[in-house]
């Protein structure tokens, strides 16, 4: 049984009376990836913002200590922004970097939480940043202008930044939205591998349930600000998962199959609803 990394309890709050998250509780285990699924406006981004402590809320997020003997977890709500930055790193949907700067400088920003106000990244840190970029296949882009990169490369640079941050919890907001198919799978498998290797944890909101079923150890289903279901794609029986996913997508069928690596995979078929126009064919997402 894996240890718990993050325990989220009773998250409530939101934007006035119109929209609010209601009593969200779940846990993330070490070395695993948790996916957030839900329609637009179901509260995925709001939940992530609360986890990052960028939005006021009730309830607590408790991160377990790195040392095994530490009993008490760290309550994220009570940490200073510097401390929080060391523990949690965040990759936004689209990066907020709109001013051109060198790729290396972007990665070096990852050292911000450990550097003093006037301190500069040292030689070792520059090397570490360079290595992170090389590991992700961006060794040739170190001095390039970040803005000139493709979306897929930008996502990898931001991943390199979180690599040097060495944080315990990685939060990603719809990492699939700007990427094409190979980049989506490549990017997410790197993240999954990284999290497993470092025994950290990740939580990401996704639009594509196929992708979520493929990479996530746990899926949290959201609808109108509530948590309406929680599934573990690796172990839960298919009918149960179908019923849970059905709450947010309408009727779906899950098909069990194997890829070339013989690994068990799940394909999601979206079923036509009766009241839709009959001549549109079934949409199959693979």
């Amino acid at each position, binding site marked *: 049984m894996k240890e718990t990394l993050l325990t989220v309890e009773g998250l409530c709050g939101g934007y006035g009376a119109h929209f609010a998250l209601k009593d969200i509780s779940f846990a993330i285990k070490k070395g695993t990836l948790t996916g957030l699924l839900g329609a637009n406006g179901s509260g995925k981004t709001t939940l992530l913002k609360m986890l990052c402590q960028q939005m006021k809320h009730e309830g607590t997020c408790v991160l377990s200590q790195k040392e095994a003997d530490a009993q008490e977890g760290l309550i994220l709500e009570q940490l200073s*922004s510097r401390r929080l930055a060391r523990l949690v790193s965040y990759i936004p949907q689209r990066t907020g970097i709109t001013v051109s700067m060198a790729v290396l*400088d972007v990665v070096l920003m990852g050292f911000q939480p450990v550097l003093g106000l006037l301190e500069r990244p040292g030689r070792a840190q520059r090397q570490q940043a360079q290595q992170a970029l090389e590991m992700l296949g961006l060794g040739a882009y170190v001095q390039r202008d970040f803005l000139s990169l493709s979306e897929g490369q930008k996502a990898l640079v931001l991943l390199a930044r979180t690599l040097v941050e060495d944080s315990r919890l990685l939060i990603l907001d719809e990492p699939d939205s700007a990427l094409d198919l190979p980049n989506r799978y490549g990017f997410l498998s790197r993240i999954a591998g990284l999290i497993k290797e470092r025994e950290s944890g990740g939580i990401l909101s996704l639009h594509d349930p196929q992708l979520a079923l493929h990479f996530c150890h746990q899926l949290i289903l959201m609808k109108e600000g509530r948590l309406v279901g929680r599934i573990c794609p690796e172990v839960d029986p298919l009918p149960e998962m179908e019923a849970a996913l059905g709450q947010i997508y309408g009727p779906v069928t899950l098909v069990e199959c194997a890829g070339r690596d013989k690994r068990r995979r799940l394909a999601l078929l979206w079923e036509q609803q009766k009241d839709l126009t009959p001549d549109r064919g079934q949409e199959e997402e693979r």
Partner: protein
Amino acid sequence: MDSYRRYKRTGWLAAAILLVIGAFILSLFLGKYPLGLADLLAGDTQAGKVFFTLRLPRTIMAVAGGFGLGAAGWVYQMVFRNPLAAPDVVGVSSGASAGAAAAILFLSAAPALVTAGAFIGGLLAVLLALGLSALAPGKGHGTIVLAGVAVHSLAQTVLMFLKLAADPEKELASIEYWIMGSLNAVTLTKIGVPLLVCAAGLVVLFLLYRQIQILSVEEGEARLLGVSVGRMRLLVLLAATLVVTAVVSVTGLISFVGLLAPHTARLLIRENGKTALWLGGLVGSILLCGADMLARSVAAAELPVSIFTSLLGAPFLIYLMMRRGGWE
């Protein structure tokens, strides 16, 4: 590839430094009163006087002021994440103009008083804009821009009233002349305090370079990198604005240097790091020093320096823009 970039960077920096030195020396010996090195060394008292009370302070002010405006311009563009951001965004220039006009109107047109008035006016405008934005609930960089626009138009209104009240023969002319900007009236006694303030602000900016770079990132992302965005932005803007106010209070309004210099630097070295900050400052020095030399030698009368900063800077910027489209 990397070493090529490094050579290119150092090359441009070295060229800029040489040009600044060249402009500095040329500016010392250029002007209405013919001055040669021989006269100076020969101990000609008249020449010495011209040199030390007129040429030297003026040249120092042009080089230092240009550097300050250029470097501060880079900072504004980063912090507001807007390539068109300039000191005007936070209302500095109009505040300084109103302050200078008030001094001319209520005290006298004595240069030292006008400088003090402009400095206080500019500072008040910035503090008002930053204070307002700190009080507002959002605290985003949009709030600062809005507060700046409000303060800017407020200062413009005050300036208009002052102009209406001014005696059109003398005071109004002084106000207009100040607004057009000139290094004509720069003397040794006037530049001491402003240069110190300018230097202090620049030191803060260069030390906080890494923070400024992170401030150019979207707020939530920056905060999760561990920067207290609100406070840091306030500090950086205050430092940048101090630099601008200090310069402008001596020279009057100088247009375009803060906008053109950083862009020119970026286009030359095609990057936006610390070298761009340095080069932006140096380009500002060259631009202002060159413009000042033209302003005092083209016509029989002194011309406003802003005419030439734009006249020199704009075509060069356009050339750089056309040379190769965008970044690589």
